[in-house]
């Protein structure tokens, strides 16, 4: 899907389809970011690949849950009123030269992503059933990523 993440969620109300596409793209681009870091910093490959794997798992689980529960989610389009996803849309793309900078960017990405999932889950909690739980699990995965990256920062 072309275009920036911001463009994909601008210019109209957020339907369930648009929100799920945003999360899907967020995870895909995050996974690409960690793969780029793994290539740039060979010594940290296990950590970055674990982060990438969690992004891939989130992507699969969120999309699957949406597709499996969408018949319960027809009110979902109205659950996301007022949600501003553009604040969560920044995903770095080019690996920096310094590991410290890469870790700082990654921690910020994880915190944004976790906050995004929490925000979407909270807004949809009363109208949807299974989707908020899947989003919470995705947020937990992103928090684990952040913790692992902070450990590296502190070494």
């Amino acid at each position, binding site marked *: 899907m072309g275009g920036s993440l911001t463009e994909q969620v601008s210019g109209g109300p957020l339907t369930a389809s648009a929100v799920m596409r945003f999360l899907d793209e967020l995870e895909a681009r995050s996974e690409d970011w960690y793969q780029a870091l793994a290539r740039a910093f060979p010594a940290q490959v296990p950590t970055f690949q674990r982060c990438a794997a969690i992004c891939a798992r989130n992507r699969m689980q969120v999309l699957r849950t949406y597709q499996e529960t*969408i018949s319960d989610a027809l*009110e979902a389009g109205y659950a996301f*009123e007022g949600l501003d996803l553009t604040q969560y849309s920044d995903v770095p793309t080019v690996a920096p030269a310094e590991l410290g900078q890469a870790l700082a960017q990654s921690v910020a990405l994880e915190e944004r992503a976790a906050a995004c999932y929490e925000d979407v889950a909270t807004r949809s909690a009363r109208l949807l059933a299974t989707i908020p739980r899947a989003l919470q699990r995705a947020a937990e995965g992103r928090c684990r990523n952040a913790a692992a990256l902070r450990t590296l920062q502190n070494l």
Partner: protein
Amino acid sequence: MVVLSEPIQGIRDLENYIDGFWEPSEGPLLDIVNPANLQTIGRVPLSTPAELDRAVDAATAAFDDWRRTPPLARARCLLRLRDLMEQHFEELSRIQTQEHGKTIDESRGETRRGIEMVEVAAGIPSLMMGKNLEDIASGIDEFLIRQPLGVFAIIGPYNFPFMVPLWFAPFAVATGNCIIVKPSSEDPLSQVRIAELAEEAGIPNGVWNIVHGGRDVVGAMLDHPGIQGICFVGSTPVAKDVIYPRCGATGKRVIAQGGAKNYALVMPDADLPHTIAACMTSFYGNAGQRCLANANLVVVGEGMNETELEARYAEVAEAFVAAARGITIGYGLDEAVQMGPLRDPGKKQNVVRHIEGALAEGATLLLDGREFTTIGDLPPDAFLGPTVLGDVTPEMAVAREEVFGPVAALMRARDMDEAIAMIHGNPFGNAASIFTNNGRWARKFRYVVQCGNIGINIGIVAPMAFFPFSGMKDSFFGVLHGQGEDVIRFFTESKVVIERWF
């Protein structure tokens, strides 16, 4: 926002699927038009009675082998079909948006509900089990065995082109019957795709057939002695005056689901934000073209004086209009769109006539859906915005007749009894909803209201695949309903065996 790609490219001439082969029809072709952009995406044949005869012959010939196929093997065919539907989930959904106009979220919801029918039908080894009782008399045992009947015809509506035929088809096939599906000639493409997947899933030749067409084919189905039963979903006049009596005359089993005029009661204690969200989906989802759509919203003043009722009515109306005004309209493959077009320009004109009639009868125009803007550069022919009519009374035509469009009629009732009397004064009995936090009111509503599907704080009372899709009065003609245990009984004969050994 993103506009999703279209799976249907160009113009496809559809064929009938008879005895496992795709065959061109000798009948004339009708255009299938995407209502959002008015592009022709296919042509559907109006098949001849002779082509229906061939399909019935093929289904009849396939029946004996299929009914002898062990239920578990039949279930495996359905499980493969289910897997293929999952693989093609997005394609199937986008086809529905292209052929019907609904939004992509609505289409995905429809796909999911359709797949759920196949999943539930795959439980046929358990669902079809009979009963027995030993020693009904000394040394005598009695058994009830469920046996398939033969060939069934399924006549689908245009509003849910993918899902509605699946209320019946997988259950008919699972129980060992053979089927002839006649999709709506307005949007038959998703049923064609299902038949292609059924073929790929290994469902034997002749078990699952498609014959396209219009009234001639329906008439031939009704009169055909080789067809054991008819499943029909469409308008009440056709269900009541054509399908039901003709099936009676020809001795066929029948499920005939007709139209609706569904009420939503908003009680004084209703959680308004959630009620309004549920109502937006219920009144305007699928552009109001849903037999479970609410159409009349009644603000109930139970325990209130007249002044309080007026204040509550004004509060509900204001919130309803504000939410409806925000609904975005456009092509359903655009992810910014919350409501698509009507299925065709003629249906839009019919809805407009209802709006004009309501205004002539004294209704107040709170939101005029005839004035709208669409997202994107689209022909306006089939589009209509959400309309809200206030001060509607039960005797107005807009309150009594099925509009089948994005029109909400707001009404008042002094108390719950008056509101229920309004529901019962209506000839339809498909669904009704109440929004309240009061268990006593909810129970009374559930207990008393003569509608087949009751919602308590639910806007669209759509029964799951393992429950019957109910309906009463002029919304349903027949005895057993689609889905659930009812449909298993519909597709099987209850044979009784009484056994004694000397």
